[in-house]
């Protein structure tokens, strides 16, 4: 897994590439929580993500909750394939704010 942090409008983008699993999800957690604690809303770009396990999903749940309590937004962008199926399996697709692409994000 590699991640890349960029900016889009007033959002921080965290782009995840490859696989998020037990070994690297703590890195994603650290990064996500740091962005939110800095007071910025975040777009988590799933478009190059091939797999995410439950530790990655749990990290998103924790970050989503922090965003909500801090009146910030956490949006998942471009989830397809297995990562989307995992979100559907856990019903989190009905909880998280999800969009198809960055074009759907309005300032």
């Amino acid at each position: 897994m590699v991640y890349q942090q960029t900016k889009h409008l007033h959002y921080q983008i965290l782009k995840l590439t490859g696989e998020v699993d037990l070994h690297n999800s703590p890195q994603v957690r650290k990064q996500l929580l740091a962005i939110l604690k800095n007071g910025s809303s975040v777009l988590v770009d799933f478009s190059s993500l091939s797999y995410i396990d439950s530790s990655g999903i749990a990290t998103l749940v924790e970050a989503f909750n922090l965003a909500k309590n801090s009146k910030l937004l956490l949006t998942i962008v471009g989830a397809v394939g297995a990562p989307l199926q995992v979100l559907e399996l856990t019903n989190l697709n009905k909880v998280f704010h999800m969009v198809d692409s960055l074009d759907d994000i309005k300032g």
Partner: protein
Amino acid sequence: MTSAPQGIIEVKGLVSHYGKRKILKNVDLSVQKGEIRVIMGGSGSGKSTLLNHLLALLKPTSGSIFVDGVDVVNTDRKTLSKLRQKTGVAFQSGALFSSMTVGENIKLPLKRHTRLDDHTIDIMTRLKLELMNLAGFEDLMPSELSGGMLKRAGLARAVIMDPKLLFFDEPSAGLDPVTAVELDELILKLRDAMNMTVVVVTHELESAFKIADKITVLFDGEIAITGTVDEIKNSRDERIQNLINRRPRNETVDAEQYIKRLTTGKN
């Protein structure tokens, strides 16, 4: 040295004994990644023994067993332990520790094998409880759960590490029909979303036909047939048809052997 074959499970010429009794007689089994394989057979057919060999809980008399490329018969303890971290097992009874809460039981593998933050572990545990329709049961003791709940809690623990390979012993046994169907659906979803390979040992036909990509039928320690659901249903093997139509076995009686067994207790 034998090179690792390509299926996630490859068994060749497996022979197994309990004492002098031969339980498995030259069993071959090949399961591909992402497949749901059901192993069927009546009581005493050897299906649970086969499962125990796949889990490396028994040593075979002869034959080879490769699981995810690991020669489980000859490998060292460390490699086996690594393999077990990628493998989930749901036992018939749930097999939870009675002195721990349901939640503590489920998170045990994560606490033992990972360095994840406690917040992450707690949420992962609750996600699995939600998935098994056990939300809110985290703080109960196993003795406070029904049989079906224990089984689902056992499954939650089996999949807490998102294993690549899940072994499931008798998922539907002792469950009411609705819960049994829900559990079958769940197995299908887990495979699709997590790309798990699932090996289910069962004698429940309805469940087997619903979830299996392929079914292996064991009779008296031998593989009678391995095939798709349609192939099994259309098999002309009388024993398979008896199993499907729930007809009792019409065994031929060897009079001499029978009397010998009754009078001496030996085969």
